[in-house]
């Protein structure tokens, strides 16, 4: 680790964590407070702990709270997935979206919904996993041919696969006209209407994923120093990469299964976090999770204002913020962290 400026480094670390927790609190409360039905701030706080039988309490507890929680969980999942991907590919542009993981998962979910309309969400998740694996594999293969994966190659391969898979999705949607409205909104990615059932679905996969990520985090840090160095230090690169890939598929897959393909969180957050606290993945992963949760929840609050009081997909807001960020990263030359 960096031995110079350790004090400054520590300060930055604690500052970042505190900032993250503060923002988390603010966006969480905001998520509970904003909605068509106006509710006082005091009622919001009260409803978190008790149920006084009022409409306000019901709304908070059954509609807004699960939505906020889903936002936190999925934001964290996507950010962790992104940070893992950036670590194993040594490429700051890597993210579930760029890697076609989102698009692949979406395609399989759409196929699942169209072929088996009565499928339970718990089973739909496996479609998402399959699709995520498929999308990621194709992009990885395409980006690695011709000697090494440069950031630019990755971006090109990723966008190509994303567009191709999106066209397949749109084709399926077009030919199943009844499902059109059902799917279009979902394809932009949104967490409106998520309930406690979705939280139940997410929790086991997320916990398993986060746990595994933390176990892997030390290896990921060593891996980011370069393949040769890592091998020299006794790391089993193949195993680490394989386990990480499975992890990404699970985290991104379950997010897409619940909320559709939400983009740019996995891209932005790890880069921002690494620029603040360095590349120790034992820290990057949990702090990315923290800020990922903040970003998604905050974006969700903002998305409610686009066409208030009607719902808008949160994917719009993340894209609005994320696309310029992506351009900035790509222009920087894609220097690996």
């Amino acid at each position, binding site marked *: 680790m960096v031995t110079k400026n350790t004090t400054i480094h520590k300060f930055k670390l604690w500052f970042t964590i505190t900032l993250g927790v503060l923002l988390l609190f603010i966006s969480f409360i905001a998520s509970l407070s904003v909605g068509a*039905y106006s509710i006082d701030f005091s009622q919001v706080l009260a409803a978190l702990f008790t149920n006084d039988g009022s409409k306000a309490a*019901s709304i908070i507890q059954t509609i807004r709270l699960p939505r906020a929680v889903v936002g936190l969980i999925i934001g964290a999942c996507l950010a962790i997935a992104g940070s893992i991907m950036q670590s194993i590919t040594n490429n700051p542009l890597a993210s579930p979206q760029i890697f076609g993981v989102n698009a692949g998962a979406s395609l399989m979910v759409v196929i699942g919904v169209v072929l088996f309309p009565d499928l339970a969400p718990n089973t739909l998740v496996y479609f998402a996993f399959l699709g995520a694996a498929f999308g990621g594999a194709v992009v990885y293969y395409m980006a690695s041919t011709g000697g090494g994966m440069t950031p630019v190659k990755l971006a090109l391969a990723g966008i190509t696969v994303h567009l191709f898979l999106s066209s397949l999705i749109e084709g399926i949607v077009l030919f199943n*006209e009844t499902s059109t*409205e059902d799917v279009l*909104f979902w394809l932009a990615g949104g967490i*409106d*209407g998520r309930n406690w059932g979705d939280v139940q679905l997410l929790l086991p996969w997320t916990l398993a994923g986060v746990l595994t990520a933390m176990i892997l985090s030390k290896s990921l840090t060593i891996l980011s120093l370069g393949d040769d160095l890592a091998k020299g230090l006794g790391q089993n690169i193949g195993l680490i990469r394989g386990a990480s890939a499975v992890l990404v598929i699970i985290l991104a897959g379950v997010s897409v299964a619940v909320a559709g393909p939400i983009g740019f969180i996995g891209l932005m957050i790890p880069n921002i976090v690494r620029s603040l606290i360095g590349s120790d993945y034992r820290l990057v992963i949990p702090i990315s999770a923290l800020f990922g949760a903040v970003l998604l929840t905050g974006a969700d609050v903002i998305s409610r204002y686009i*066409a208030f009081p009607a*719902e808008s997909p949160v994917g719009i807001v993340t894209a609005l913020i994320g696309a310029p960020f992506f351009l900035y990263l790509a222009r920087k030359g894609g220097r690996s962290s």
Partner: protein
Amino acid sequence: MKWTVRLLTIAVILVLAACGSSEEGQEIESDEATGSNNSEETQSEENSGSEETRVIQHEMGETEISGQPENVVALEFSFVDNLASLGVTPIGIADDNDKERIIEPIQEKIGEYTSVGTRKQPSLEVISSLQPDLIIADMKRHKDIYDQLSEIAPTIILPSLAADYEGIIDSFETVSKAMGMEEKGAEVLAEHKDKMETLRSQVPEDEDRTVLPAVVADSGYYAHNMESYTGSLLESIGLKNAIQSGDDRYNKINLEQVVEFNPDVMFHMLSGEQTVVDEWKENELYQDVSAVKNGEVHQVDRNMWSRFRGLISSEKILEDAISYLYE
């Protein structure tokens, strides 16, 4: 030498291109010439009858139509309704490849027809194979293919998808004018207005309950506000819509908003087996909504209530609504 060759090649290409386009132009011109010759002939032949060339104003400009079109292609359901009211069977309908979408009262009125595909993407080939003499298309869906449609037959573009009840009446009048059946059209319209008056009288003066028509699907609850076709129709007989604002006519709303609007009567058009309402039913907030509490949630046919926007269907919608509310 090399440059001369290149210049020559470019020149040859340009000449070929110009030849090609002017040939096409000549072809089209000669087609149009024969076309207008034909109509002139028809005019001079059948001048004894009530044939004339009418100029119909529509959303994309003006179209000339002569005589009484016999082979009409309708690219939206509201136009099918309009034609059926006039007693005309269209030769082709964009029925989304599903004959079941044509509601019963209209199925009985019209006979066999040929499907020209989906309303979103009608097949131009099938349309032209039917050799129509009039095409009626929707402003929102088909304005981009207006030119291509016009090459097949005289085409008029009217608002259908984005029209409210008043707009549908206007479209009906234009359709009857285009068909050269203005008299019959006026008759039918008068009958319709009478029927609407009768239906309106069945709604008590002091009816102040709010209604909410909505399409309910797996992905969400799409409410039709007071400017939508169904909403404006119900409003026209005194049934106030629960949503009195909003830029879009069809908004996806969540449970919180339904609680906020608290409609007294809900008309749900089902899209799919499983819908969000099935999830909401387990939430006490939903059960507290006025319409649910009072057992005034009615499932209605989406084809009738939303897809077919015309005189016949609007009468049926109101008959249905009144029987749900007052019988």
